[in-house]
């Protein structure tokens, strides 16, 4: 109790909260983003790219783009092909747009699916504790020690009727553990707090406490974690596509464009095929990460900027 005494004067903080909303609320997260110039620019960039990519891909004819045209192989950028063509004579720009759309979409999808599953899993383990926790955590520990990349590649190679959906399911199956673990440890800490105990004595059911009392207190770390996961998942998808184990062949992806660069000729002399894709992935991941880091700072009062 007496600790307040020193901490209050030592941490040069806490004034403006007097009239603010809930202490870790979404409004604070938003304010932090707006205050952080880099994060704001990043956010605008993400929104912009997303709109452009989804908008333009409506106009583009995907079948046309992925059709092999042997007459126009490896053409440098020109009026007809803004970013030239690849080894199959396909328009790189079109692939870039649709590839970005696909990468973003799957990034969002996988993040959402791992998020929902991981949150429920972690919340259950952490809240009930004891044997439930023990069993759930053993399973999770086992999943954690699997060599993720290889197992995913083997599955991708094995699954019959391989599609975008099966791909995202495979990714989800091996990617939910991080957030589940985080949520579990936070829930373990949270449920020891008296407000959870109080809810019990006030007659609220476990389910109600888990989702209406505990979960809101985890919302900011969930948002932070899912934002950072989004970046990681976009990277993972493009990495897998790069290796040839991501999207099915007929679906363009940023990683596929990059995989052409494993050909030394392409790497050295046909920059238009891989450099734009590389830059786009980099900028996207950097932006999403920037937003994520700004959110993280916002939730961690120690690092909050003024």
């Amino acid at each position, binding site marked *: 109790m007496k600790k307040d*005494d020193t901490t*209050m*004067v*030592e941490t040069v903080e806490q*004034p403006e909260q007097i009239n603010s909303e809930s202490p870790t609320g979404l409004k604070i997260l938003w304010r932090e983003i707006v205050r952080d110039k880099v994060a704001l620019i990043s956010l605008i960039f993400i929104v912009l790219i997303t709109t452009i990519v989804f908008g333009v891909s409506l106009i583009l004819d995907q079948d046309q783009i992925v059709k092999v045209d042997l007459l126009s192989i490896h053409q440098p950028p020109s009026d007809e092909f803004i970013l030239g063509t690849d080894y199959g004579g396909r328009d790189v720009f079109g692939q870039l747009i649709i590839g970005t759309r696909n990468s973003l979409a799957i990034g969002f999808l996988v993040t959402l699916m791992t998020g929902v599953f991981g949150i429920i899993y972690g919340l259950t383990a952490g809240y009930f504790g004891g044997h439930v926790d023990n069993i759930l955590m053993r399973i999770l520990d086992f999943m954690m020690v699997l060599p993720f990349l290889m197992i995913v590649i083997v599955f991708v190679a094995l699954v019959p009727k391989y599609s975008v959906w099966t791909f995202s399911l495979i990714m989800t199956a091996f990617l939910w553990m991080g957030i589940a673990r985080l949520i579990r440890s936070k829930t373990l800490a949270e449920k020891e707090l008296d407000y959870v105990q109080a809810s019990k004595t006030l007659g609220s059911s476990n389910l109600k406490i888990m989702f209406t009392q505990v979960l809101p207190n985890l919302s900011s770390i969930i948002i932070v974690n899912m934002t950072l996961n989004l970046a990681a998942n976009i990277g993972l998808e493009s990495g897998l596509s790069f290796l040839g184990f991501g999207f099915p062949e007929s679906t363009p992806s940023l990683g596929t464009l990059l995989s052409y660069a494993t050909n030394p000729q392409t790497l050295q002399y046909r920059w238009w095929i891989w450099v734009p894709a590389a830059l786009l992935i980099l900028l996207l991941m950097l932006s999403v990460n920037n937003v994520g880091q700004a959110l993280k700072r916002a939730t961690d009062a120690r690092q909050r900027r003024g």
Partner: protein
Amino acid sequence: MSQALLKIKNLKTSFRIKDDYYAAVDDVSLTVNKNEVLAIVGESGCGKSALAFSIMGLHNRAKIEGNILFKGKDLANASPTEWSKIRGKEMGMIFQDPLTALNPLMIIGDQIGEAIYLHNKNISKEQRKLKVIDLLEKVGIPHPERVYDQFPHELSGGMRQRVVIATAIANQPELLIADEPTTALDVTIQSQILDLMKQLKEDMDAGIIMITHDLGVVAEMADRVAVMYAGQIVEIADVYTLFENPQHPYTRSLLNSVPNNKEASSKLHVIQGIVPSLQFLPRKGCRFSARIPWIDVSAHEENPQLHEIEPGHFVRCSCYKHFHFPEEEVQ
């Protein structure tokens, strides 16, 4: 009166919040003599810990104004090198939470030994170990040889606090600053630690500054008492006077709020409200006036000073003359 060991004059410790400085300690003057316990009492946020940290030079980002004269030498703006020669040698500090105050990854012997080593590098390792074991014995730890090689988490709270005390007294300091030394402990352990501190004070002829919120601890330990409110000393007197004849409204409220042993179920006289936080301190006038609105504004001083109302008994602001609890009849 013996010669003052520590003399603080108009000390002001300010912290930067946003673009402004706020004083956690404001216009504090006091003295500590040898073989004397000065208790500094107050509630959360009154600035008592900030005061202790200022005396030990442990604030790194604070602005310190005024004088801290320790054995005649002004430490207010001493350099880090000067401080590290004084701290641990001539001044020792005892912290509130003995668990966090000890390095969890270092054995007890090394933690106490470090204090000796830092101020006397000529002692051999073996001698140092003997000294540490001696110290452990002195603070009443059973099996000191075994404890020497143990880690903090292997000891109980009371034992840990004894280790912290042993560290503080390793070089026989002349001034000990104890920041809530018994707050984290059970009451039976508390009385043992207090007895130990009294014993050590006598043995070493040291001055002790005891920071606490517990008036019981004050009554047991202190020779003189300073009551702090909102960064200022509002009343200072010897312990008997303060408990028998408290003058400042805050002191009176504080003393009345302790459930005493006399009568059960009696109402406690207490002034509503809390210590205002640093940014919302009134910078002028009597800082307590907001909490006693039934006392007329004219009773307060515009720029309240400490008045010596009898020898050694100082009270801030003239409002004490007119103060009464709201439940009491006005004379």
